[in-house]
């Protein structure tokens, strides 16, 4: 009995801890079916009405569109810029490496409220004209770059340098070596970095809140501002859908990675 206990106590703990992590997710999903009144904090009864009219709540779908737009653009720009920096750090020798590393590290070590307020200080000094979509996009790219650099750099560092040497030995010039060997092998890292950047951008509240001005609303900002007067259940519906999509992407990615590890697919 005690042998069974000591063997399984950690597993039981892990299941309980995961339950704790997922409890708020379950609440969010459950309250998407609530017959909400003005606020959606107390269970009133089951209904599908929010699921049948996702865009019925004012502004919610526009906010989601804005979030997707900012998220995709910020991901694209940050992934390209961050990958370039990662290759410079991982594959080149140059002066100023430690300064570069510091400048990559600092944004990750700075609280969002500082990033948000300092950007607001800049945009206010510039007259406030950029506040809204442009300021939010510029800010999101900024805080995503560091995370992209770190993720891609780790992947580059894990590459066997002999693979690139083998390519050069087999008549590939520098460009072909990069395109045929280096880039395909780093690609999983770039994809992971892009996913990370998108999820950071898509869920950002604080920096967006400081820099979005009064007329531009993202999905997290919509939830944040409406939390004062009551969040419509449609927000829970959208969050639940996002959760399902993200989970599907990650699960498919995991399965692919596992199969690739076994060498069964390209």
């Amino acid at each position, binding site marked *: 009995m005690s042998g069974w206990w000591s063997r399984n106590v950690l597993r039981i703990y892990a299941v309980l801890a995961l339950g704790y992590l997922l409890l708020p997710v379950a609440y969010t999903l459950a309250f998407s079916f609530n017959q909400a009144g003005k606020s959606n904090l107390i269970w009133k009864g089951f209904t599908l009405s929010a699921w049948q009219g996702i865009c019925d709540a004012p502004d919610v779908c526009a906010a989601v569109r804005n979030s997707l737009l900012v998220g995709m653009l910020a991901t694209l720009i940050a992934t390209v810029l961050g990958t370039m920096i990662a290759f410079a750090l991982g594959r080149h020798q140059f002066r100023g490496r430690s300064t570069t590393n510091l400048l990559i590290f600092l944004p990750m070590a700075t609280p969002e409220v500082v990033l948000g307020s300092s950007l607001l200080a800049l945009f206010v000094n510039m007259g406030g004209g950029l506040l809204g979509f442009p300021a939010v996009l510029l800010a999101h790219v900024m805080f995503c770059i560091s995370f992209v650099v770190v993720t891609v750099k780790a992947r580059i560092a894990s590459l*066997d340098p002999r693979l690139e*040497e*083998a390519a050069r030995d*087999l*008549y590939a010039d520098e460009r*072909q070596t990069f395109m045929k060997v280096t880039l395909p*092998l780093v690609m999983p890292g770039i994809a992971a970095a892009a996913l990370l950047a998108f999820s950071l951008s898509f869920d950002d509240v604080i920096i967006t809140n400081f820099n979005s001005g009064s007329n531009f609303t993202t999905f997290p900002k919509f939830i944040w501002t409406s939390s004062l007067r009551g969040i419509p259940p449609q927000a829970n519906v959208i969050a639940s859908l996002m959760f399902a999509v993200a989970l599907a992407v990650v699960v498919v990615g995991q399965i692919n990675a596992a199969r690739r590890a076994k*060498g069964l697919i390209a």
Partner: protein
Amino acid sequence: MDLNGDLVLRDLRKEFGDFVAVDSINLTIAQGSFFALLGPSGCGKTTTLRMIAGLETPTSGQVLIGGTDITHTKPHQRPVNTVFQSYALFPHMDIFENVAFGLRRRGVGNVEKQVMDTLELVQLAHLARRKPGQLSGGQQQRIALARAIVNRPAVLLLDEPLGALDLKLRRQMQIELKRIQTEVGLTFVHVTHDQEEAMSMADTIAVMNHGVVEQLGGPLDLYERPVTHYVANFLGQSNTFEGTVASRDGEFARLATADGEFSVTSAQSSGTLAMGVRPEKLEIAETTGNTVPPTANQVRGTVTDAAFTGVSTQYVVRLRSGKEVTVFEQNLLFGRRAQVGDEVTLYWDARHSFALPASAAHAAAADGS
């Protein structure tokens, strides 16, 4: 670049900071030969190989193929291919694409036949659509070889290609490699630290130590006539005696040592000299039952250890001076075996002794006396 002819290294040197990895070596490797660079890790053999491949830039000196200087030619422009120690197969491509990689980069149009022929040569054509990760170590090794030889390079470089394989597979692959080399007729330059591997495969071996070539020659030559202490002990084992040349006896010098006088093939007629003899060349008069031939070298000693290893019995015999010599006696089942504590007479044909330069310590001691 289409080049043919001998591979020549001229005063080739590589320094990493203060460390001299390769110390101005000169080598000529004949076209179509199987050449081995043999030495312990850190002796500079892999650096030499990488300079031939173009993966390392020499500090000075030249690399030539058929008289053309390729010292500063980029790796992808050299008619040289490498089989890497860890194979370095591209994990994201299947076997076919791995083998076709070099052909495609050179713009060869229809690669199908060449790739499949080469895969036939290494007997793995049935795995063409597998990924490297699904292959065993031995199979990956063959694919790495196929990926290099499909390009028919002027020189094929093999960097410890069998190092990761277990002993049995390694012996099997040695035979296979030799067969393929004969079949395709390319120049193979093989880097290894395994003396048996080098001797069984190569036509010519360069023994390297501390960045220099200690001795160059055929396997038999290197084994029977090593010219330095290092070579005498890196290729197999040797018993060595230090002494002073006392007189001459035809082609032999008579060497006076602490354990008596011995004949050794040498032109020297005075001064200090060392002599080596392989353990399997020594015979124990008491076990063979033979009388010692008058021209043979002989010495008396006491058996201090006897280890039976199957093919032979390995004895350690302590001589009068306290020196211990090793004797390998072939296991013929007949006759008696010497026991620890036995007093024995060792003898060997004088032609089996080889001369080595006297060690610095002995030469200095002899000078002082």
